[in-house]
């Protein structure tokens, strides 16, 4: 019952609750805020794994920039409440059992894999495997330099695409 154990389960429960709220909420802004909650709990789980840089960057990039844009879009488009529909028969009778079966299969393979228990028991902290920013950056800019540069060009293409799409026709 060590502190990493309690923290792991607390943040895991918050992440799952946020994900459920994301699909079940009626107002789109509530869904967006629950996705922010999921991002933050993922950052906390990264911290428990010893990846401090990734945790901080997860909050800066995902929770602080990407989700802000989601929230902007929802506000500007004034998306209304979701309509209540009767699910189609296939979804009701075959969907839920198939979803449960998928979850059971995932749980089976994860239990066989094993490292999750170690993380929950603070194995990452005990083995002192916290990756420093210095080590991460040495790896990123020396060994994986080409993928890094290729990704940045990909992002540039995305920005150019957005500019072209948003340009007004003159």
């Amino acid at each position: 019952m060590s502190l990493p154990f309690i923290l792991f389960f607390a943040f895991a429960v918050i992440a799952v609750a946020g994900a459920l709220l994301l699909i079940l909420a009626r107002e789109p802004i509530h869904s967006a805020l629950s996705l922010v909650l999921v991002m933050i709990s993922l950052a906390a789980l990264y911290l428990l794994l010893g990846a401090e840089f990734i945790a901080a960057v997860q909050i800066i990039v995902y929770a602080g920039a990407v989700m802000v844009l989601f929230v902007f879009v929802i506000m500007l488009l004034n998306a209304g409440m979701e309509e209540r529909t009767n699910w189609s028969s296939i979804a009701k009778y075959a969907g839920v059992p198939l979803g449960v079966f998928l979850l059971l299969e995932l749980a089976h393979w994860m239990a066989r894999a094993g490292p999750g228990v170690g993380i929950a028991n603070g194995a990452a902290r005990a083995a002192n495997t916290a990756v420093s920013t210095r080590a991460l950056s040495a790896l990123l800019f020396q060994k994986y330099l080409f993928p890094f540069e290729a990704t940045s060009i990909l992002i540039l293409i995305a920005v150019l695409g957005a500019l072209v799409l948003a340009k007004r026709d003159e």
Partner: protein
Amino acid sequence: MEFITQHPVLVVSLVKIAVLMFVMLTVLAYLSWFERKIIAHIQSRWGPYYVGAHGLLQPLADGVKFLFKEDLTPPASDKFIFLLAPFLALTLSLTTLALIPFGPATVYILGHETRLVVANVDIGLLALFAITSMGVYGVALAGWSSNSKYSLLGGLRSSAQMISYEVSLTLSVIGVVLVANTLNFNELVNSQSGYYWHFLPRWHIGPQFVGFLCYFTSAIAETNRAPFDLPEGEQELVGGFHTEYSSFKFAMFFMAEYANMITVSCLATILFLGGWLSPFPERWTVLQYLPAVSLFALAAYLAYDTVKHMRGLARIQLAIVTLLAIGLGALCLAPAVMPVIQGPFWFLLKIGLLMFFYVWTRSTLPRMRYDQLMSFGWKLLLPVSLLNLIVTSFWIIWPLLRAR
């Protein structure tokens, strides 16, 4: 008692958090007094004068007013988010103060030796940016959930401004990180020790002057202060995103704005102005008496004012403040306190200077129009920060390239 001996780190952290919260909330309240007094004196008037001696009880009166005002909620608003937004804004602003180191010394709390910081994180700078980048939510959600045109426009403008200037804020800081080669706040301050030619302190404002200008301008825009405060300009948008908020929720936005100002000023002192380092050489040990001497000088001025100008209740109040100042000055002379108070004294002095600069620009400069504001941020500050980053990188790597 066993709890304290079994979990010393937890209890000590709780004590530090309690002290920090108490001090910070008082400082936030009196920052409003400070701002009103300085703006008033720049405009040739007195500001708050009658509520306590020299208006010193004005923040208390404002607090009582905020608590007892009617708490309105717009009828068609999203109630959960309407409640959430001010809490989010204030909580995030106050959380960042846990990362800031106030001094180099170690103190003994409950028998446990600890430094003057609540959380000494290795990636302190990155964690601070993570928390401040979430601050956009408070403003955006407040504007949207008020269900009013003014609020929505103000909220959207304000959050767009905040995310725009956040980019140049972080870029202007990376130059300092390159020079100091670390993200930890303690290391950043320690890398600024030493002197050029034995008397000029080796603060990062020297080699990174352009970075400092970019940083401070972005900080003023990020905290929505004048001259970048169109989103909350009274003449244009009534109140902007906090139009529909009353009573304590409005006070929370108010406090959140001041807390943001304090946070960016703390960051500016740590990164550029040498944090808790004194600008004078270390050998001048007589300067150890400076906190006590300055408090005694303040007490002397207050005593003169009490005797010469104050009458009645204000006289008694100011006499009490004088005695408080004398007491604090005597405390700073105590041998246990004197080495510890040096760091925080210089830190608070530098933050006070930056706060004064904030208030000075508010009362002097006219407001920028929104499109001017956005084009300034994207077309001027961002290229200048990038240029600063490129020049700093070349400056650092040039000796290594030449040696090849």
